[in-house]
């Protein structure tokens, strides 16, 4: 008879993980916990090296023969080019202040998701090859050889970091883990280790200007369709223009806003607002993406994909640029664009044509965030708003990591929300503003195959949403990020929360009172407004 464990024996099973030093534990690639390898076609299209077919679960990753030299050379090159990298490697005192601040550590309990240890995965190799102590003492000095297992471990954990920079807020030295992750992913790319989700977006973006690969006419069709929808719901038809030379403003949104729900309603919100203002703006068929997946994997790729924005602004001869509700797009625009592809001296310092407000904060980049623009309009009383049209919404607000931590954009979205919605409740202080918890799916991790990791990472966020949902009956979670709008619905579904995700400009459009408009009975999603009787809707029909 084969041995069958008795219940008592099962009970005695010891689930304690073996206490082995971190350097000796290897990651296990199980489904739901890693992103698929990129197919060679994207790499070829982008002139990325070592395009080949390989699979993460294979023992042999088909690396080039001299992979180790290549990686070390890449590291060497980056140490010389980025003073920050050497600094981040050298100055960490391992105080542990960042250790429990990462949503992946909090949600997974995996110690290698502590930011300090995530960095240590790279730093240990740096020590081995670039410090005297590491060369001489090896492990004793926290140094280790670069092996294939180490490379696999980098892949595993660098694609479990959303580059959200929450840990950096708590680090006394401001060590920027997002930068380390990007540079680490660059090292992986140098030997052809990339993920399909990111490379497909980057490859498409390089070709058509947007992550989804929509050519200009398809992009235009979609926006025309949104105009139809706006007209049907509100009776007002927006009249956007495309590639119009001499327009005052170029408007750039993330593709998530015109391709996926509920971002589409945010896009309709922009269109209606601009129509209300009779704004002199245009949309470019090539600068059709504010997001930048290139930035998640390398500074060079980020720069290449970002180039189109200034170049289209120049070609169209606009005065300044207005940008939509996106997350990482704003880290790129606010902190990198100017040095990468500036100076944009062919543009003017942005001035609102409606209020004459000069956006001095955008003096150099010439690009204004749409919530800055709208908050200013409200402040100057330029919008007639009927808040009660959002009375079916009980709202809280998720500070998307990048606008919050990379831009300090805390007040403008809140100011708008308070002016368009009567019911607004904040989540607990330690989960918002600069301490905001990530959605768990940023930086190219929103692949469906990574779902388990994403649910772990999003746990602290969902947990805070649950609190306001139970306490105040919150039924909508506002955000200003297209990735959030795509990934928060599945997150909240897993955690069992009946809460919808909404962009801010969707609610602005709901509240906006157009002169001579027809009586509003439904919102942009065709949901009946509070206080509207069923007969009123029938009458209209």
């Amino acid at each position, binding site marked *: 008879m084969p041995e069958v464990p008795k219940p008592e024996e099962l009970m005695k099973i010891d689930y304690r993980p073996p206490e082995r030093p971190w350097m000796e534990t290897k990651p296990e690639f199980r489904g739901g916990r890693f992103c698929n390898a990129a197919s060679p076609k994207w790499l*070829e299209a982008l002139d990325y090296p070592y395009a080949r077919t390989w699979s993460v679960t294979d023992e042999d990753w088909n690396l080039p023969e001299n992979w180790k030299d290549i990686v070390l050379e890449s590291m060497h090159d980056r140490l010389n080019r980025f003073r920050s990298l050497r600094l981040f490697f050298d100055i960490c005192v391992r105080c542990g202040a960042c250790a429990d601040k990462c949503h992946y550590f*909090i949600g997974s309990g995996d110690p290698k998701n502590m930011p300090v240890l995530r960095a240590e995965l790279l730093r240990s190799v740096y020590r081995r090859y670039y410090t005297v102590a590491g060369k001489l003492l090896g492990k004793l000095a926290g140094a280790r050889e670069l092996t294939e297992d180490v490379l696999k471990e980098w892949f595993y954990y660098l694609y479990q970091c959303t580059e959200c920079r929450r840990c950096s807020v708590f680090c006394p030295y401001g060590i920027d883990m997002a930068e380390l992750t990007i540079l680490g992913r660059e090292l992986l790319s140098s030997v052809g280790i990339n993920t399909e989700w990111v490379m497909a977006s980057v490859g498409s973006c390089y070709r058509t200007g947007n992550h989804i690969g929509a050519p200009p006419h398809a992009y235009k069709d979609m926006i025309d369709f949104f105009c139809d929808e706006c007209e049907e719901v509100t009776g007002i038809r927006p009249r956007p223009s495309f590639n119009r030379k001499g327009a005052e403003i170029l408007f750039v949104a993330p593709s998530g806003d015109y391709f996926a*729900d509920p971002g589409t309603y945010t896009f309709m919100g922009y269109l209606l607002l601009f129509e209300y203002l009779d704004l002199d703006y245009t949309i470019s068929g090539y600068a059709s993406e504010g997001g930048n997946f290139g930035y998640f994997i390398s500074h060079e790729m980020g720069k290449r994909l970002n180039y189109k924005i200034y170049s289209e602004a120049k070609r169209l001869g606009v005065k300044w640029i207005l940008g939509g509700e996106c997350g990482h797009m704003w880290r790129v625009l606010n902190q990198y664009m100017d040095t990468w592809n500036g100076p944009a001296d062919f543009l003017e310092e942005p001035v609102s044509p409606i209020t004459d407000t000069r956006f001095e904060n955008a003096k150099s980049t010439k690009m204004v965030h749409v919530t800055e623009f709208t908050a200013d309009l409200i402040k100057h009383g330029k919008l007639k708003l009927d808040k009660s049209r959002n009375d079916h919404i009980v709202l809280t607000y998720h500070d998307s990591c990048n606008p919050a931590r990379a831009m300090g954009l805390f007040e403008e979205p809140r100011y708008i929300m308070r002016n368009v919605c009567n019911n607004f409740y904040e989540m607990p202080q330690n989960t918002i503003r600069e301490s905001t918890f990530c959605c768990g799916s940023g930086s190219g991790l929103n692949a*469906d195959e990574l779902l388990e990791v994403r649910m772990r990472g999003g746990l602290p966020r969902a947990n*805070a949403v649950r609190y306001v949902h139970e306490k105040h009956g919150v039924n909508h979670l506002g955000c200003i990020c297209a990735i959030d709008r795509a990934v928060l619905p599945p997150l909240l579904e*897993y955690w069992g929360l009946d809460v919808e995700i909404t962009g801010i400009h969707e609610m602005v459009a709901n509240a906006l009172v157009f002169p001579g408009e027809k009586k509003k009975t439904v919102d942009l999603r065709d949901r009946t407004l509070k206080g509207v009787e069923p007969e009123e809707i029938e009458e209209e029909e």
Partner: protein
Amino acid sequence: MKLDSLLSEKKFSILERWFNLILESYSADTQSFLKREKDRFDNPVAYEFGQGIEGIYEALLHGMDRDRVSSFLDRIISIRAIQDFSPSGAIAFIFLLKKVIREELEREARENGISEELIELESRIDGLALLSFDIYMKRREKLYEIRVNEVKNRVSGLLRRAGLISELEEKPDPKKRKH
């Protein structure tokens, strides 16, 4: 009856032992974080586990309907179902309660003749274990369901209904346009 009052009396120490035993399934660094951080938003896992085990314990003591006790089990299982555990590892925590109760009540069991009641209690815990298995499966099924829906919802339903996306679904092969 004797057992019930003993369980009420020892509730705090039993729950504490149970909680610590559950945390032993994590590495040392993680355990110390889970025990140290008391803020429910900075440490949602420990908070949920704490709430979950207390609810389950109450259910055992005073009885509870299936839905309510399931919701307490789910507070723990929903988390462990997406962490690095095997299915048995994810729900083993419920069996640990037997171990804790036996150890805590060892002396009383011998002296006060409550072993029969104890056996009855243990079979109720077994019932909870079966329930846990269902909950675990539901959680895993939910994950698959979300994944399938996510792939479908990647493109706006509005656009799909308007027939605006067929063209995009067949992305041209970039190899063909080699520069």
